[in-house]
């Protein structure tokens, strides 16, 4: 049996006193891909940020176990260095810090955290060249300020570049497919698939069944008002696409 990477138990979280996650349960094993779908505002991004430890959210109940250990007390940088990676729905622009410097510092932070020696600028550039290939990105993006003036699609690709470099055990892709053109979608999906190993897992948050043609999920979950209310396989995504979220409404009402 493969190892449980992530186990979320009855998770409750709020922001500015408003409860957004209302008892969320989820278990992910090594090698699995889980898709999360759900209406706008159902709490998908909130869940991803709570997993990564965003300070604005307060966990008010339940637990998050990562590789068997609660991470609720861990700082966000610690969680990241332990292998949790979040590809943001809206990657933030950082003026004045070059993409390359940022990548190098992030990469070395992880090495340092694991007691490894930092790698020098030259070796690092070789490594980055290799990773650029995964997302078919032009090296000119390395010299630019991080995400600054990047198009929506370029920002998403840059997120996957970072993921390729940091080789996380658990990646959370928050609507990485939104705003991508058809070619970019394929490239990003291929990149994600290329990085998948039997040891690591991912959570793919999306609104479109289309992405799941490229990234085959083992499970599809539907989020509704801060909870996962339905779990199925790939077929669930197809059903949602066809019938919309209304049948979930009915389902929730029946359950209530």
């Amino acid at each position, binding site marked *: 049996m493969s190892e449980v990477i992530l186990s979320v138990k009855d998770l409750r979280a709020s922001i500015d006193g408003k409860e957004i996650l209302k008892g969320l349960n989820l278990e992910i094993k090594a090698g699995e891909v889980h898709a999360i779908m759900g209406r706008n505002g159902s709490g998908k991004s909130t869940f991803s940020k709570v997993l990564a430890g965003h300070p604005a959210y307060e966990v008010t109940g339940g637990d998050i176990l990562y590789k068997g250990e609660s991470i609720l007390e861990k700082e966000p940088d610690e969680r990241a260095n332990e292998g949790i990676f979040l590809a943001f729905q809206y990657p933030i622009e950082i003026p004045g810090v070059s993409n390359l*410097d940022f990548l190098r510092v*992030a990469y070395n932070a992880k090495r340092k955290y694991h007691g490894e020696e930092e790698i020098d600028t030259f070796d690092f550039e070789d490594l980055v060249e290799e990773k650029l290939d995964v997302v078919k990105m032009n090296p000119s993006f390395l010299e630019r300020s991080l995400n600054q003036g990047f198009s929506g699609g370029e920002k998403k690709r840059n997120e996957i570049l970072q993921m390729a470099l940091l080789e996380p055990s658990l990646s959370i892709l928050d609507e990485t497919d939104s705003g991508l053109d058809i070619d970019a979608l394929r490239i990003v999906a291929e990149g994600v698939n290329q990085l998948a190993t039997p040891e690591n897992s991912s959570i793919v948050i999306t609104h479109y069944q289309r992405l799941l043609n490229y990234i085959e999920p083992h499970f599809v979950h539907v989020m509704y008002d801060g909870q996962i209310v339905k779990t199925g396989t790939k077929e669930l995504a197809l059903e949602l696409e066809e019938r919309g979220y209304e049948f979930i409404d009915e389902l929730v009402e029946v359950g209530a």
Partner: protein
Amino acid sequence: MSSTTVKNLVNQPYKYGFVTDIETDTIPRGLNEDIIRLISAKKNEPEFMLEFRLKAYKQWQKMTEPKWPHVEYPPIDYQDIIYYSAPKQSKEKLNSLDEVDPAILETFEKLGIPLSEQKRLANVNVAVDAIFDSVSIGTTFKEKLGEAGVIFCSISEALQEHPELVKKYLGTVVPVGDNYFAALNSAVFSDGSFVFIPKGVECPMELSTYFRINNGDTGQFERTLIIAEEGAKVSYLEGCTAPMYDSNQLHAAVVELIALDNADIKYSTVQNWYAGDENGKGGIYNFVTKRGLCQGVNSKISWTQVETGSAITWKYPSCVLIGDNSVGEFYSIALTNNKQQADTGTKMIHIGKNTRSTIISKGISAGKSKNSYRGLVKMGPKADGARNYSQCDSMLIGDTAEANTFPYIQADNDRAKVEHEASTSKIGEDQLFYFAQRGISEEDAVSMLVSGFCKDVLNELPMEFAAEADKLLSLKLEGSVG
């Protein structure tokens, strides 16, 4: 990583806060004509200098402290300040720096400024004038500079050795009655540097002055004068530190630069005076008048400042562009934290034709500090074809700091062009979270963000100091995280 840790980030101990215990020659507290005569006599000054001082004193008495800066402080009791304090010397005149009181040499060494003969061999590209309270301790590389015809010494020494040069230029850029603090300085100035680069000479090394305030009750009244004759070129840098006292000390300086035809003066400052504690107790009042005169055609004066210390900073290094085609530049980083207050910027006065000026200002405010950019660009009626470009960016760290921009433009010539850009950004939770999510600690994130923000200005500093200044910025913001 709550907002309280963002606050923690901006606290760090001041590393230069120690006091050197030495015997001093200190005059009585207070200010009057006799005190001014006493200072002048102690320095054995020529008669014209005493007259200059007394004239300034008379003007100062009629003036009032400026109230327009966006800073607050309790009234200063000018009768409670000691206007002259110097380390006691065993000999009348020292033959070499190696004869200086070892405690003082050690002080400068601790500050990273080795003065003794063997030690300074390591740093052969920079000549140093070291100023301790009211007097210059000594100047390195004098002989080598002398061979090139360059004069680099303290202004006190220049008054002995080259009185005619001092007389010719002193007060020509900043007149004795220019403003309240300049008038005070002109009356009581103690020491500072004197630089003279003769016609056609490019100064063979960086010149620098290190200012140290040691005594808790002494004001430091620095006076610096730099003259670059036709075609001459020089790069000069000043650094400043002071011990931590609960009281405030006054540093009221006047710096005058004069560039003749085709001359080029680059003046850089890394200011790290004691800033007071996190509650705003103690720290230096840094009230400074710095002005450069681009007298000659094609001359250039460039100011670069990294202001990180002082409880209050009030300074506007300016350029008066008289010579046709002359160039003025102002590159500034002003970082304030805790309860620090800064009101700083520049004045670019375009008088000659085709004169050009550039202003790049980066203000960083953290803690409960106040940081204001104040600048004036003036295009005179004869300044045909003159151009100015200004860019003023502010960065806020946390929610309790204040950033302001007060740009003034006065154009009396419609053939001149003025461009102004401004921005305000904030190091917010989401930016820090982005870094953290990639495994980067808050401290590293802040330092990357700040040095990225300041890059355009750091690049203007002489190579030897750019890395130091960058480090200083990080240090100033470093917290007790981890």
